[in-house]
């Protein structure tokens, strides 16, 4: 477990730094990226996602040849195949929220460091949204 904590720290540091460097911490820029019909499209975030996906694709290729993790633990990965209503509906709702505020969870959380009051309002609302889902869920 202790070694896993080190992995969490290193991954967290890289992720937070990457988000801050990438421009995704700026909701106005994110909305500029999403505004593809607005005539002043900002493609920066395509390079963010592209860079991350390429590196991660290599990681998945490496992972295919592994039985255990580098730390000797088992992989604990989510299912990939079942496309159901919650996946579709949830993605639509998330997308609308992302477009409204220009924030998805990662950039909102690092906003707690960069712009604490504004990001705090969003993050508290996000927790409320998660709670609402948790207690409204139809079994």
């Amino acid at each position, binding site marked *: 477990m202790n070694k896993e904590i080190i992995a969490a720290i290193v991954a967290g540091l890289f992720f937070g730094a990457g988000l801050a460097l990438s421009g995704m911490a700026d909701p106005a820029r994110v909305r500029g990226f999403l505004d593809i019909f607005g005539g002043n499209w900002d493609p920066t975030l395509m390079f963010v996602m592209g860079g991350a996906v390429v590196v991660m694709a290599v990681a998945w290729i490496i992972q295919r040849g592994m039985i255990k993790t580098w730390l000797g633990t088992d992989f604990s990965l989510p299912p990939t195949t079942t496309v159901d209503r919650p996946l579709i*509906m949830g993605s639509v709702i*998330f997308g609308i929220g*992302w477009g409204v505020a220009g924030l998805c*969870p990662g950039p909102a959380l690092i906003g707690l460091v960069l712009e604490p009051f504004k990001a705090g309002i*969003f993050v508290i609302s996000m*927790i409320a949204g998660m709670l609402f889902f948790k207690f409204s869920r139809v079994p």
Partner: protein
Amino acid sequence: MIDLQDMMISEGLVGGIFIGIAAAIMLLAAGRIAGISGLFANAVGLVSGSTSRNFAVIFMLSLLAGAWLAQVLTGEVVSRYPDNITLIIGGLLVGFGTRMGSGCTSGHGVCGLSRLSKRSLYATPIFMVAAIITVSIINLIGGIQ
């Protein structure tokens, strides 16, 4: 016209590669998906899965530390936020939607797409298109302050 002055393509690429390295470490060392919405829900105690809360909390604190370090080392990180009502509406939708859809830009968009996960190959274009339509409608009716 695209304003070349305003773009941050190299910064975006470097940031993206950092995010990719982070997600790769999560996968290859910890055996997990670097999905921020799931790890955050776990850290605040809203879900319990195979990942311990301790792990999720440490990851979240490191995420904030990484952003803080980047800001200190590179100078000002720009962040232009909308008004508070917009933040509340957006936050509620993002929280609800990411739990219902089991992921956000990081889990589905970065980790899932690169894994060619069928679920993520559906989820990612859906939330991208939903976001693009939302922004277009908002701008059409006068925008957000």
